[in-house]
């Protein structure tokens, strides 16, 4: 019956909100600092940041060299 399902829907919503409310939260400044730290620690290995050496670029058309 729709009326019963309205009540059970509301009860489910309350339970869901209780679950979401119980999350332990850390400060945004701490979260942001850790995200920044991760970026900086991994920057040197990020090919899109530091560039790919011409010789070892897997997507670049290989230029063939003939040894004469």
């Amino acid at each position: 019956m729709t009326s019963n399902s309205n009540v059970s829907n509301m009860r489910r919503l309350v339970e869901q909100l209780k679950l979401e409310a119980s999350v332990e939260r850390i400060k945004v400044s701490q979260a942001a600092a850790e995200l920044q730290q991760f970026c900086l620690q991994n920057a040197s290995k990020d090919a899109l940041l530091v560039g790919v050496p011409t010789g070892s670029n897997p997507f670049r058309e290989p230029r063939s060299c003939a040894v004469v």
Partner: protein
Amino acid sequence: MAAEKAEIDALKKECDGLRTQIEAARKAVNDGNMSSAAGSATDVGRVQLKLRKSLKGHLAKIYSMHWSSDSRSMVSASQDGKLLVWDTHTGNKLVAVPLKSAWVMSVAFAPSGNLVASGGLDNMCTVYNIKAASPKTLRELDAHTGYLSCCRFLSDNEILTASGDTTCCLWDLETGKQKIIFTNHIGDCMSLALSNDENTFVSGACDSLAKLWDLREGTCKQTFSGHTSDINAIQFFPNGNAFVTGSDDCSCKMYDLRSDQEVITYQDASLNAGVTSLTLSNSGRLIFAGYDDFNCHIWDSLKGEKVGVLSGHDNRVSCTGVPADGMGVCTGSWDSFLKLWN
């Protein structure tokens, strides 16, 4: 009837109280945002990537692409009714999979490289074995009551799907049956992303919310708001503690799981096009977001500034992806081409 109405009113009041409690708890930890914390990080400068390859082969709009875990093969899906598996180093097509339904919206590569999956307006997710002599349909996962918007393999035995029927679903590929159905969104689910440890995933939907789910228990653990329109794209930040969303409201946002809220918005007054897709570079510093304006704009994830653009497509950029080795970025478009940049 009166007793019931009284109960509903009491429950509504309880919901409102809980919502207020959640907002207050978020506000209490909101002591600064990303761009102020990132003040000390060096600028990335102008990011100028070159077009290395244009992959021609599809005859109609490309809707989705996904890299293989070998960072070399890639699968794309087009409404020309085909999946194409490419060797991105040579530009050659390795496999062509003809689809029963041409209205494909999503494609995925299994981590093993043995299987691909696709689905769309047929409401199904079809899994193919591409290592067989000719592509063989392994499973047709048929239970969603709305379009398939996104699919991702956990392994050759399990796949996660997102659907226009507002649910996400974990399937057992051995039996072809649903294992867990994730219900909580009130709008079409458009995109999902798996955490590295495969214990959780995030989903973005047309209700403008992103949700974090426990993959094994089937529960929604956290809900993130802020967008004012459909979320079309979602990806985890590489350390797994945050994720980025792209929306029809023309902005991208980064949300942190542990502070349970948005930490920065990526938007520009001159950008009035919806975000269709997004991917991150391996360090998480760069966000590549595909827009309806035919471009893929590059954002500095820490400072919130636009630092570059990949221009070259003649129609909407519908999908983007960075392979596991981070050596390049692929964009796919309604112009029927895929482009590789680095």
